């Protein structure tokens, strides 16, 4: 695996720490405001307790004296609560935005084959469900924990004033809670991990089914696909029930475990009152405070469940980050002028993971301006050569030079800017035809696009559409036939105008009437360019400067069309079959 993707760099920096710290001022402000709010409320309750005591002592309470400070507290509390809430949720929202942004950026830099490792469904689930979970962590769990901690600390001081003994009782119950919470949360996390994997599966099936709708519809696959999906959904529900079983048990234990020390404290308080050490009023104030401290303590301990559950989501998002990026190093631009050899391969080998070798000992030397073709049976590695040239996959052995520079020294971006690639499966983005042809290149004039389309023999068709070049294509928008898509891909490659043209079956889906035109167009544009064609149809490459014949991953024959025919080898055999078939 490593040898296949030798050119990638490892990114193990923890994204969440970095972002979490960058935006921590919001969180700190939140805690500060929460502490103030807490203080305001405690002050309020203190005032009440004081007043209560007064009442109990049979003294008169001047209500007007109380009103003013309390009204001030209400006003302050309202404002502080607004600020606190804003800080907390902005922190979460901004963190989500930054994480989504960083992850999306990361996706763009991943090596070609990353989706083989994590399916599209999995990535979409991570961006949606896991992100929601993480959002919940930042907006509820984390601030909750921190605020509870602050509360515990601040309230503890009041207790210290009251009686140290109470603190001792309260905190004795801590270890028990910790052990229980730890055990439960670990089990919960295991279930949640499984649950999330099932969600990935569900999204993947949905994505798969919608992409394959044509096959699904024409083969009446609805019952089969529905069953596949239902099974995944049911499993999610089942896992959800399991996690409920554990988390609800945790709540019960939390409630019981936090109540026992409370009762102990009350009884202790009672004992203190009976022995006359504190007043009933003090005990009441203490009642209020106890409520304010005991639940935070239970929450802090049992939020381990939430933290571990969110932890699963974090780990899954981090999993995207840990997918190794394509290396960025290497020269950023190539000097294409001087080199006398455009592409040079020496003894290149290639295999996908653990599989048998696709390419064995392939050597190529391609000079500027040459037109070179690769032929051979299906699955013999012709398209693989193009993928290696583009750096989609890494050769396992051998030497690859582009314009005289070693492959390892060129950045993938610079490497790919040398190629215009027309692949077998044309992917169109859900954008206008114009955008699809320009394909991100800056400052492309309409003239350039029109000329490319004329050359690719698609201009007239585009003009026949009601909205012309502004017609939307791709996922939503008009359906184009295979031939039309292919010609748009050719126009796209022409607009890119790179020194090397890679054509993988450029005329496969094109009928014979159009093929001639495209052939002509290709001849026109390939002037002064180096062209590599993978072809099934030998008729299309008859005029190539050199033809490589691939057999079982090796170059079995090479030469010009006539030379190869004269050899009466594999090529001649292939040619004979085609001539026979098309005759």
């Amino acid at each position: 695996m490593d040898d296949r993707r030798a050119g990638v760099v490892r990114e193990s920096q923890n994204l969440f720490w970095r972002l979490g710290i960058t935006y921590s001022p919001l969180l700190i402000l939140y805690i500060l405001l929460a502490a103030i709010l807490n203080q305001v409320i405690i002050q309020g309750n203190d005032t009440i307790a004081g007043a209560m005591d007064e009442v109990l002592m049979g003294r008169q309470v001047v209500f007007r004296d109380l009103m003013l400070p309390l009204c001030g507290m209400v006003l302050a509390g309202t404002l502080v609560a607004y600020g606190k809430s804003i800080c907390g949720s902005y922190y979460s929202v901004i963190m989500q935005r930054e994480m989504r942004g960083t992850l999306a950026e990361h996706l763009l830099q991943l090596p070609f084959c990353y989706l083989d490792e994590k399916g599209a469904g999995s990535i979409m689930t991570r961006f949606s469900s896991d992100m929601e979970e993480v959002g919940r962590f930042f907006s509820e769990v984390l601030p909750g924990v921190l605020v509870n901690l602050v509360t515990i600390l601040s309230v503890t001081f009041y207790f210290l004033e009251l009686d140290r003994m109470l603190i001792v009782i309260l905190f004795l119950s801590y270890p028990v809670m910790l052990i229980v919470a730890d055990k439960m949360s670990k089990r919960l996390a295991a279930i949640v991990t499984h649950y999330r994997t099932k969600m990935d599966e569900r999204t993947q099936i949905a994505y798969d089914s919608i992409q394959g709708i044509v096959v699904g519809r024409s083969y009446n696959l609805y019952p089969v696909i529905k069953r596949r999906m239902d099974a995944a959904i049911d499993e999610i529900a089942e896992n959800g029930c399991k996690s409920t079983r554990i988390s609800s048990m945790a709540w019960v234990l939390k409630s019981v475990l936090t109540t026992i020390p409370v009762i102990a404290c009350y009884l202790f308080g009672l004992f203190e009152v009976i022995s006359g050490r504190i007043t009933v009023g003090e005990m009441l104030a203490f009642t209020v405070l106890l409520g304010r401290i005991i639940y935070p303590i239970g929450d802090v301990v049992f939020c381990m469940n939430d933290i571990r559950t969110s932890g699963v989501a974090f780990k899954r998002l981090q999993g995207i980050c840990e997918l190794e990026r394509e290396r960025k190093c290497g020269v950023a631009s190539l000097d294409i002028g001087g080199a006398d050899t455009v592409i040079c391969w020496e003894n290149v080998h290639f295999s996908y993971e653990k599989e048998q070798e696709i390419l064995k000992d392939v050597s190529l030397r391609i000079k500027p301006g040459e037109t070179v073709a690769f032929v051979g049976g299906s699955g013999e590695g012709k398209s693989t050569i193009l993928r290696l040239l583009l750096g989609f996959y890494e050769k396992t052995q051998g030497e690859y030079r582009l314009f005289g520079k070693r492959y390892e020294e060129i950045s993938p971006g610079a490497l790919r800017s040398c190629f215009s690639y027309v692949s077998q499966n044309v992917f169109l983005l859900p954008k206008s035809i114009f955008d699809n042809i320009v394909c991100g290149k800056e400052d492309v004039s309409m003239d350039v696009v029109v000329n490319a389309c004329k050359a690719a023999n698609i201009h007239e068709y585009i003009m026949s559409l009601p909205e012309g070049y502004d017609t939307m294509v791709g996922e939503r928008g008009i359906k184009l036939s295979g031939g039309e898509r292919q010609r748009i891909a050719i126009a796209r490659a022409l607009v890119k105008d790179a020194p090397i043209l890679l054509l993988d079956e450029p005329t496969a889906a094109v009928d014979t009437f159009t093929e001639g035109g495209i052939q002509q167009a290709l001849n026109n544009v390939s002037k002064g360019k180096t062209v590599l064609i993978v072809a099934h149809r030998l008729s299309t490459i008859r005029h190539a400067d050199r033809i490589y014949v691939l057999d079982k991953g090796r170059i079995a024959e090479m030469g010009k069309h006539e030379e190869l025919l004269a050899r009466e080898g594999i090529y001649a055999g292939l040619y004979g079959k085609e001539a026979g078939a098309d005759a």
Partner: protein
Amino acid sequence: MHKEGKKKNLFFWFMGLMGKRLPLYLLGIMASTLGMALRNIANAEIVETIVSAAQSKVVDGICMQVGVEFFFFVLSAFLWRAGIMQYNIEGKRGIAKLEKLVFSKAMRFPMSYYEEHHSGDFISKLIYDTERAGDIYGSRLRRLSAAVLSALLYLIPMYSYSPQLTGCLLLISILSVIVNSIFIKPMKGIGKRLAVQNGRMTEALTNILGGTELIKTFPIGRVLGMEYRTANKAACDMQKEGSRVSALLESFQCMFELLSALIFLGLGVWFVARKLVTLGELTAIYTLYGTFRYVFSDIGKYLPQMMECMANVERLYDFLQLEEEAESYTVENMVSTCEDAVVMENIRFSYSGDRVILKDFSMGIKSGTCVALVGESGCGKSTLAKLLLGFYPPEAGRIVVAGEGDTLASRRKLISYVPQEPYLYGVSIAENIAYGREGVFPEQVPMEDIIRAAKKANAHDFIMKLPEGYQTVPGERGNTLSGGERQRIAIARAVLRDAPIFLLDEATSALDNESEQLINQALDRVCEGRTTIMIAHRPSTIAMAEEVIVVG
């Protein structure tokens, strides 16, 4: 008024999804609420017992009393848990049902839907909207009804301690809920717009995921990245707007919390001064009121939150109301009497009012013949195949396939279709091929049949060379398989289908000569005595046909 009615119905519709299990779900909510309330009451009783003892300085039998109360406390905690499990399990079932409905719906639209809508839109509905809507089942409804129920439960002991004081406190709380209900509308609006933004974001993400090859070979990655960033920012802004509204809501909550404490103090002092309540009673009420206050402010908080999720329910409801593909396009039950296998008469067709692709097109294909459809690229050959498969209704004219019943599915059953771009599902090659056989589940198809079909399609040999053979799962883009290999698996699937009509849309275009010849030979064998329609541009394919029909 009408809209109000819909809103109400929407809620009942949503709850109705649970069907017969709804009473069980509601029972669970009641049990958990009751359990929680009883637990809190037991807690308050314990406090009251001890404080009264402190006040009266009489401590006889207090341990026994507290012990009994604590026992009830634990008991009600377990009732609480039983209720939680009950409604959660039913809730999860409800969400599963909703997801199944959404998915089933997404599979049954007319084909034009898939062209007009981005797949990201549906995925977002399936994973985002159902999750949010499911929150209603999972927590929001429970919280709200728990709040209402326990508020009622708290009122009883509070009332028994002091009717006047409780009445005053209730009045204040009701006022706070009324004020909070002004947040319902904006919250719902935000919920809806947030869902739309989330859909956009998923679409942008889908483009990045689907366009890997383009991103690597063209400078489009920057553009797609920017589009995602824009969608991301818009979603974030929407979230921020939501935050501001809920912050306002929260500050109202806080204001009410403090105000109600203040009012409680005032009232308490006043009532105690007039000896209307004892201090013990006041303490007990205060303990209860502490929770009651929260519970009531919860109503004010959860009502708008639930309405936010109702926005997602509404989106799903609208989605589920969209029109599905018709069972059949013809009104009258047409039984074909002609001997032709396929008849098309005076077909006129255009994609949603665009350029007319087929105009007054007619053809008849005799049973058992091999026909090639030829014509320039874009002349409507592939469209003919889609019309034959019933993907679209023709604008005029009629299509009859011999032996079809009165549904589109019955017609499709008669056709083995090999599309231009072969699609392989993310399941094993064996299962992909087994999908060809209709009416049985893939695992019921004998392996021999699958292998036989693969051999006929000239796919067996290369499949056996794969490390995992027939159990290989083709990659996301089928990267490990070449175009020709994928095409041959698709052909094997069609071979296994064994339908009377073979429909091949440029099925051999991605194949090299050698496999093409083998496939053509295979087709020759398979097609014998079968009606075969080939959309073709290769002379070698056309040569196989007994008849050539020029389209366009």
